[in-house]
């Protein structure tokens, strides 16, 4: 059977079409203000990529912060459940998955079957989410995509002490005024996000293998910051931003069969 998993996040909407555990097509569009329209659009893209029509899809499942507004289904799975299922499908050895999106960070400890054992959210602190990286890239006057590569050129670790995104921004401005090299500031920003996420990961506990998913997993500088902070390798699956949608598609298939 063909199932669709739709992940309606704060910044983007993602769809994965799945048949017998194989991904047939994917689609990603910005969430925008009209998430229903964006959700329709992302499904359209995924269908086009798979060369399918919507009638072929037998089961839908929504996840993400906007999952209750999915126009195709009432069936839903939480972001935590979807992340655990999705990662288990692509990396069976994974026992801890860290999901850092635009709005929040999540740490999930799971077993060999992708069942959630414990979880934690970092939802109150913007300094531990992707939006903070975006704001800091703006302060450094570079596109977000360049923040990670720039940070990899850093020569030294510059500590950022502010606990809050607003104060951290003024700290960045001070570093700029002090003529701190921009690559060092970029690394400081990503290290700061990673340290907040890692304290949450330590709360739920972790063991090998650790995977990083969500939009921030696409940032190579952030991945390095996480590796340094956790003092271990961190796996980034292919298309890390689609893992939630994949987990939802798997849940839809389980529900329908």
């Amino acid at each position: 059977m063909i199932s669709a998993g739709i992940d309606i996040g704060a910044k983007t909407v993602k769809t994965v079409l799945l048949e017998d555990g194989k991904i047939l097509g994917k689609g990603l569009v910005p969430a925008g203000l009209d998430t229903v329209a964006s959700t329709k659009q992302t499904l359209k893209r995924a269908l086009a990529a798979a060369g399918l029509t919507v009638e072929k899809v037998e089961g839908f499942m929504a996840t993400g912060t906007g999952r209750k507004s999915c126009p195709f289904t009432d069936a839903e799975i939480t972001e935590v459940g979807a992340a655990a299922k999705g990662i288990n499908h692509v990396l069976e050895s994974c026992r801890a998955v860290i999901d850092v999106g635009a709005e929040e960070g999540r740490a999930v400890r799971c077993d060999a079957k992708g069942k959630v054992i414990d979880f934690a959210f970092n939802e109150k602190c913007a300094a531990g989410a992707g939006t903070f990286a975006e704001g800091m890239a703006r302060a450094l006057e570079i596109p977000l995509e360049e923040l990670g590569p720039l940070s990899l050129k850093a020569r030294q670790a510059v500590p950022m002490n502010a606990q809050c995104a607003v104060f951290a921004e003024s700290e960045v401005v001070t570093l700029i005024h002090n003529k701190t090299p921009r690559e060092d500031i970029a690394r400081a920003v990503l290290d700061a996000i990673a340290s907040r996420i890692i304290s949450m990961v330590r709360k739920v506990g972790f063991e090998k293998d650790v995977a990083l998913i969500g939009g921030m997993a696409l940032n190579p500088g952030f991945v390095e910051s996480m590796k340094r902070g956790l003092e271990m390798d961190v796996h980034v699956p292919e298309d890390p931003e689609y893992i939630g949608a994949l987990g939802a598609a798997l849940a839809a298939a389980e529900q329908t069969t």
Partner: protein
Amino acid sequence: MADKAKYKTAPLKCWKKAKELRLKYYEDYAKAHERGGLRWAGGAWSFSAIPSGLGEDVWSLTSEPYAASIAFDKDFSLRCLEAAEKASYARDLCAYMRNYWGSIILNEYAFGGPFPKPDFIWQDHICCSHAKWYQVVSDLEGGIPHFCMDVSVGPYNEMAPHKIDYLVGQMHDGIEWLEETTGRIYDDDLLIEAVKNEFRTTSTWAEICSYNKHVPAPLDEKSMYSLYVLGTLNKHDRQVAEFYQELRDEVKERVEQGIAAIPNEQCRLMSDTQPPWGFLSIFRYMEEFGAISIGSLYTFGLIGIWEDKPDGSWGPRATPMQQGIDIKDRDQALRLYADWTLSKPEWQHFYSPHLKTEMMIRIAREWQLNGILLHYNRGCEGLSVGIAENRLGLIEAGFPVMAFEGNMGDEREFDEARVKVRFDTFMETLGLKKNGKS
């Protein structure tokens, strides 16, 4: 939901009476002077039976439940909190204390009319806030005589005669102080009656909570809040002691007849510390998943007095009267009273989070729980100290735990939508879906 009903339910027959007793308590306090009586204020932890020896026309206002009543009324609470902040009291202080001070500053009583100024303050020191709470009340009110007891003698499992002596000595001093302050002659018979009432109230409450070991639970925690509150107001009062016995009989009958608190119980949880009073609807939200909170160490042990039973289970402590002790004089009454109160479960964890973890694990096992909800309560330094440690202990003991942040008395620090998202996730990890589907 109806088709998911596994158990029959019925409203509590005692419910109306509990509400009436609570309202009467607040009204009695406000009208005390009209009746020629006395008013005193102090914490719900204070040795409240002692001022009863001053006469039958002495009424109290206990601070924490009064502040919780304010917190329940979100608009009034916000005005109180803002008034306290405007008066320069910091926003990170005990939220109950800020609500209470705000009510004095605004001169508005949550139950109507101006704030009724107490004639004296009768307090003890459990946490750091207790030490300051009534100093500020007295300052705000232009000076009120204040007696305070130090109870920091360590946990009950390390009790020793000299520790009881330390408390009893202060109690004797307190009685002399009460006589001097009020100009009244102290009546030991009234004291003895009040402590006996308190033994009955607190033991019976533990017995009521024990009935929740039964599956399905006859009571849910949200309802228990409206019942246990009487023990925080007036546990030394004969009417409260009698009400709890009536309630105990009804709960026993519910168990015998298989009457459940919720019709679709399939997951048993407990909470911890005071709930966010302005958002008790989260308990009803849980019920949509077939999850019930059967209580907590807080609901069981703030009022209930417990002991180990011969079969190893936790049950109501046998009162001195049940043990055949005849209370004859002031000193004997005070000694028994000190020993009894120091065994209160909620006092123990002020000394060590490990003692709390042990009690929580015990509840989780004996009450057959599937999971635990921990409230990282920013409003109460006293009860939230060590919660992260408790979490680790509970997880190690094999219980799924969900922690959420909030504040029992400051709604600005509780994010309802986010907390519900956490509930959704926790319920999913426990294999539960909305409307009782599993």
